[in-house]
């Protein structure tokens, strides 16, 4: 894998490519779920690698298709997991805003193991945003959701991004979603960035037929 990305503070970068191209591996290396073989990962003056910075010190929000909620906790406990046990009033109000904006009120006290996949995805977004991370990594978070839910999550992310001001790297294989969230795109193929720039530039001159096919609507 050979990837070089630079993201401005508050910016949004899309990683686009075919399945198996290495998009998810890039995010998992930044998050620390996997370790890169070589090179470096730096964010906001912190060196994530080398040496590997412990995950709890990275300040990164990470959401995958499976949000990996903690099954022994309720939805509320999951979302508040990263906050201190004794919450301030401001934090409690923040959680309530997240809860209401993502439609979680009805399942707030439900066990995380008992909710549907779509509800879990929304809870995963709320849990990720609860700590207001400066960098958010999204790995195909809309996969498998119906259009209504996709729209709701997209709108929620756009609203929260404006409010919190986090930087974002998004992975998906659907260009429509990525274009809505990010103005810059890096195209990955076989573990290498093969094209980078604005969506308009990439669409105007796709590097190969595979990319051209991926960019076409169904």
């Amino acid at each position, binding site marked *: 894998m050979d990837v070089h990305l630079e993201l401005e503070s508050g910016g949004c970068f899309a990683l686009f490519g075919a399945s198996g191209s290495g998009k998810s591996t890039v995010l998992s290396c930044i*998050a*620390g*779920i996997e370790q890169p073989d070589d090179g470096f990962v730096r964010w906001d003056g912190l060196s994530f690698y080398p040496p590997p910075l*412990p*995950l*709890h010190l*990275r*300040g*990164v*929000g*990470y959401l995958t298709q499976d949000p*990996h909620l*903690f*099954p*022994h906790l309720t939805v509320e406990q999951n979302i508040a*997991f*990263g906050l201190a046990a004794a919450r301030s009033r401001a934090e409690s109000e923040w959680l309530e805003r997240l809860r209401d904006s993502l439609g979680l009120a009805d399942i707030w006290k439900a066990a995380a*193991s008992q909710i549907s996949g779509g509800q879990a995805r929304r809870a995963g977004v709320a*849990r990720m945003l609860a*700590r207001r991370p400066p960098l958010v990594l999204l790995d195909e978070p809309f996969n498998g959701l119906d259009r209504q839910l996709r729209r709701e999550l997209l709108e929620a992310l756009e609203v929260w991004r404006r409010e919190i001001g986090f930087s974002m790297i998004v992975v998906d294989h659907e260009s429509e979603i990525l274009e809505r969230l990010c103005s810059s795109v890096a195209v990955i193929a076989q573990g290498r960035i093969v094209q980078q720039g604005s969506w308009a530039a990439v669409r105007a001159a796709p590097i190969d037929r595979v990319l051209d096919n991926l960019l076409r609507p169904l």
Partner: protein
Amino acid sequence: MRSKLARAAAVLFALALLYPLSGLFTQIRSWRWDADVSGPSLASIRVSLGLTSLAMLIVVVLGTPAAVYIARRGVHERLWWQAVFLLSILLPPLALGILLSITFGRVTNTPAAFVGTQVYVSIGYYVLGAVAAFDGVPTILEKHAALLGQPPTAVFWRVTFPLARLGLAVALSVAWVRALGEFGAVVVTAYYPSGMPVQLWVNLQSFGLPAVMPLLLIFLITALPLPWAVHLLAQRRPHA
């Protein structure tokens, strides 16, 4: 027809397994509980329950971090560790007792030797069971907990332990039964102070079956119900 035959065979098998318990109801001479029997028997109950509890505390304190470490190792290192703990489990109790008495030296026939022997005979069961319990906790959950700002100890107490606790309880219950019932090794390393198994043997040798039955009943009551309940609960809630 075939399923009825299979069920009948299963019932017969279950009855055969439960048959030894019928000995509790066998008509024998009146149970004996005079001073010659009750005094040492009550002392053995205190020894067994007290010192086995201490042994279990040592097993948990030493065995849990070991199990956490082993559960997160690669395949080859795990095999090595499993070989070590299997050795402690598979050693014949009498052989283990003889080897421990040589190791303990002057410490034999003391509470320390009693506790040490119980730790040796049971820690392998606990650790291997605890490793299986921790294996059941997906590491991705631990990583997500860390990404939410939790340091390793908080991840363990807030995610790993709650998800593994039922498996840990099963492992500890097996270790408890193993330690409480240990005779072959303890009779060599710690004849004194006598725990329930050794005292049962002494009562049998000295006074016969009537002197054994009261202590046997107490022994079964202290050894069986908790592990039995824990195992049944674990079967009903495997993902608790």
